[in-house]
């Protein structure tokens, strides 16, 4: 206790190198926000996204620079270890792809480029804080730092009612989730008298708090709060609506980055701080995982909107990844991180194709939009096919190896039945993934594209030169195709040569105080 007091009294020593990835992101956010104020269209539409990419790239470079470090930063508020660094890379990749996808999208044009990109960078910074957090306070700060910009980003297509609905819905539910989480964290602190993860673990160990009702109440509320963030059933109801309503690049970012960040903190909180009471929370989480897998997969079956379908699919995938948390072993941590990386790759490919087709056809994200693209746009067709097969867990794709790893972890951790739940989920999932694949390679003529809805209401404060509507101008944007092709190919290559990915996640579990 005295040491805590002392640390509070003196200014903590700050290892600037250790937090440099964070500084790059936040610095980028400031610069981009300023630059967005220029009147020059070039500065706003080209330079801002470019500098955002530079900031993300710099952050990624700094992450790699710190690769071999194992440090406690800022008096133990943040932890720099392989888990944080690996997830940083996942987050930054997601952000990079998101910037590419939103370069010529409507959302930044309607809301102003500077704000859009700066919010995006802030959100990533929040996630970086979150995956490194090893203190309850840092955890909450990170969570809010990434959530609040996302609420706004969801609503950036301001003239579309669904986007506004999506933002509002996310705001309300996300806030409720945050509040519950905060309450849970407070109870955990109350039970253990410490906010530091290792301190909590030590307190549980020393005082035999494994079944303490105050602690368990805190854990239960924490689970609920985090379950909102990573859309674990039954706290997932917001997901399809928000995913569908948000601008597709933002949806992409939410789908992959939010998951990675939330699971990062899940791993660290439950497998480090709360490991002592895992006998109590693991069965509970196992039930949630089962429910999530079933609800997500069944929910996805009847969807004709691809974004809704992928939203339910992301719910199901969250259930798969939860299995790695439940087993609470090094292997489980590695399998989860591995799956997060794989999930990133597969989803980026799928969302890139949706973005491309939204711009090329008038079907929006309806499954009609991708009918026959195997013939018209083979590149996109293959990317989407591989991504769907990967999500379904078909061999020779990264998804297969990911599921293999998770099931391996489940069986190894004496949760073989969860492995069976995973495969039952995969079976159900085939029905909707293959429906997409069938549409991609369908030879039937597509229905004529409906033109977009009538003119949308003008909005005060909107950029005057912005297009008034969602315009499927048939433009084929190379950066979108690039993202689709790159990550589609990665799905295949990592399924055949998974070695590099295994190298990446090898140490992720070692930094945690597991066994």
């Amino acid at each position, binding site marked *: 206790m005295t040491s805590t007091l002392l640390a509070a009294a003196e200014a903590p020593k700050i290892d600037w190198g250790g937090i440099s990835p964070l500084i790059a992101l936040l610095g980028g956010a400031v610069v981009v926000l300023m630059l967005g104020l220029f009147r020059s269209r070039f500065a706003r539409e080209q330079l801002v996204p470019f500098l955002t990419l530079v900031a993300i790239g710099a952050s990624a470079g700094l992450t790699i620079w710190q690769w071999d470090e194992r440090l406690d930063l800022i008096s133990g508020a943040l932890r720099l270890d392989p888990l944080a660094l690996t997830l940083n890379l996942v987050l930054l990749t997601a952000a990079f792809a998101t910037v590419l996808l939103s370069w010529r999208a409507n959302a930044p044009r309607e809301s102003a480029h500077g704000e859009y990109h700066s919010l995006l960078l802030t959100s990533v910074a929040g996630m970086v804080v979150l995956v490194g957090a090893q203190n309850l306070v840092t955890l909450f700060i990170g969570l809010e730092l990434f959530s609040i910009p996302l609420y706004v980003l969801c609503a950036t297509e301001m003239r579309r009612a669904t986007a506004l609905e999506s933002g509002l819905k996310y705001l309300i539910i996300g806030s409720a989730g945050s509040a519950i989480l905060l309450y849970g964290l407070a109870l955990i602190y109350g039970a253990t008298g410490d906010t530091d993860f290792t301190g909590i673990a030590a307190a549980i160990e020393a005082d035999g708090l494994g079944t303490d009702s105050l602690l368990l109440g805190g854990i239960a509320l924490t689970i609920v709060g985090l379950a909102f963030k990573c859309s674990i059933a039954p706290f997932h109801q917001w997901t399809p609506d928000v995913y569908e309503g948000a601008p597709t690049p933002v949806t992409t970012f939410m789908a992959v980055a939010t998951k990675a960040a939330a699971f990062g903190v899940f791993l660290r909180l439950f497998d480090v701080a709360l490991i002592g009471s895992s006998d109590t929370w693991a069965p509970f989480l196992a039930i949630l995982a089962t429910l999530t897998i079933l609800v997500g997969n069944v929910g996805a079956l009847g969807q004709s909107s691809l974004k809704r379908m992928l939203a339910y699919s992301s719910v199901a995938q969250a259930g798969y990844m939860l299995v790695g948390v439940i087993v609470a072993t090094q292997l489980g941590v590695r399998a989860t991180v591995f799956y997060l990386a794989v999930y990133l790759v597969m989803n980026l490919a799928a969302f890139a194709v949706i973005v491309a087709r939204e711009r090329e056809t008038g079907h929006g994200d309806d499954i009609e939009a991708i009918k026959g693209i195997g013939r018209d746009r083979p590149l996109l067709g293959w990317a989407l096919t591989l991504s769907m097969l990967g999500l379904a867990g078909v061999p020779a794709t990264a998804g297969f190896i990911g599921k*293999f790893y998770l*099931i*391996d972890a489940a*069986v190894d951790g004496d949760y073989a039945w969860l492995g069976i739940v995973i495969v039952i989920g995969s079976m159900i999932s*085939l029905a909707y993934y*293959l429906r997409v694949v*069938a549409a991609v*390679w369908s030879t039937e003529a597509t229905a004529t594209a409906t033109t977009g809805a009538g003119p949308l209401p003008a909005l005060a404060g909107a950029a005057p030169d912005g297009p008034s509507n969602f315009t499927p101008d048939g433009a084929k944007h190379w950066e979108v195709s690039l993202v689709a092709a790159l990550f589609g190919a990665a799905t295949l290559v990592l399924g055949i040569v998974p070695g590099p990915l*295994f190298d990446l996640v090898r140490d992720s579990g070692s930094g945690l105080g597991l066994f």
Partner: protein
Amino acid sequence: MTLHLSIFLWLPAAAGVLGLLLRSDKVARILAALGAFGTLGYAITAVVDYDRDQAGLQYVTDRSWISELGIHYKLGVDGLNLFLILLTAVLFLAAVLWSMRRPIERERHYWLHLGIGQSAVLGALMAQDLALFVAFFDLMLIPFYFLTIGWSTAENKNAAVLKLVIYTLVGSLLMLVAAIALAVLTKDASGNELTFVISDLTKTTLPEGSQDWIFLCFAAAFLVKMPAFPFHGWMPDGYRAMPLPVLAVFSGVLSKVAAYGFLRIVCPTLPDAAVEFQTLMLIIGLLSILYGSALAFTTTNVRLILGYSSLAQLGFILLGVFALNPQGAQGAILQAVNHGLVVAPAFFLAALAAERAGGSEDIRDMGGLAFRAPVMAVLFLIVAFANLAMPGSANFVGEFFILLGVFNAKVAIACIAFAGVALAAVYSLRLFIRAMHNRTGADTDSREIGVRDGLVVVPLVLAILALAFYPQLPLEKGEKDVVGAVAVAFERSDPERAARENGEDPTQAATPGRPESGVDPAAAGGAIDPATGAPVDPATGTGQPVDPATGGGGEQIQIDPNTGLPIDPNTGQPIQIDPEQLPVDPATGQEVTP
């Protein structure tokens, strides 16, 4: 001679990918044919070059694929898969040649998927690593999915093929869990590193409780894939929806991979469970025979007749596998090859008949072809005779072995299964008569078989004839490994007979007392399974080839797993054990008798 199995395996897929990239339909077609011919050449070379005296895997390729999970890229050929590989190469070549003379939309994709399909099937057959096997087993479905949705003419193709995929992947994915569980539990039991290499897995026998559920998961995968009654729900729709050449290989090859999986993986690694569920599996086989036969002579769609007849034939193969003795296993592998060779030309001929009946695949619309198309009728007749296992055909030999094996294992089931032979005659002849003889159908155009179609069908028929004349070829080449695959299960299911068959040669009298089977799994696995710790698995059985005196089709098999084995030096002592006096566990018998 060294054969690079990786080249063999990936050749068809590589040809397909290259064809897709070269953006010319004609080149793609030629490349596909070259790929299929090259694979066949490789397969023939392997069969010719295969050293039958050296049991165990040959031409092994073994690399670490995913070291973190102990998964190896291990390929190998042995007596178990040698002829199935040849069959795969033959049938895929036939399918390629058949497809070449018909116009195909998006041709390059067609060849790509066919090539990937062939590589996946070859991979499943060659894989000597459980995880690799599972991956290929699941993967082989995907190209067939694409081939069906892309090139089927059926109305409800999407629904049908979705049903097929989900049905089969239900089993396959359960197998994935089972495979992982098998490896992880084996790791826990043996204390070694996690490994998926099959020969390592056979060294340790799991406790029975774990074996049981793992067995059931594997069985689910294989029974659905075969299919066996009552897991055939996908078959009628799937068979109707698939394009014909695709269906010929699907029915001819993919179902055999399932039967092969039982022998390659289930029997050696889960012998106790195999014994425990023997009766159940035999009954499933029996039901498949009866149900398949009954439906084969009541339906009128040619594809379904052949589909249900396959169901019945695979019932026989299942019976052979789960006789759990050398005769049954030998018969199962031989029959798998036979059935593949029969069903593919049957599909092609049925397609020709359908083309001549105004495109209808209903046998009521066919008929009257034999008079104007005698060659085709003769070809069909040979195929039909082979299908009904006419004495003289290799199918007869195969069924004989199977029934002999089942007779030795469970007499009652064998007696009922004999009925299946008679039923096969009914449906095969009905198909032949309705398609070729009978009254000429309304829209029938009795053309003779064309030269180019003949080039596909005639070699297959010749292969049937060749195998009829010389069935010893696959039997003898594969004997040691086929027998080795069921050896442990054989001994556990029927120790007395196993002892008798093994111990007939007095100089090797210690054989029945294969020590500590069940007590020391590693030793038992080592003694019986070829894997004795040496990486390339030198086989331990030197099975005396044929003992004409004992009759039984002249294939009385004797295993001597001890020669060359460092494990049992004490077996040099001639210990006479009278099979009649053997205690239940032969091991104890040997322990007691010094």
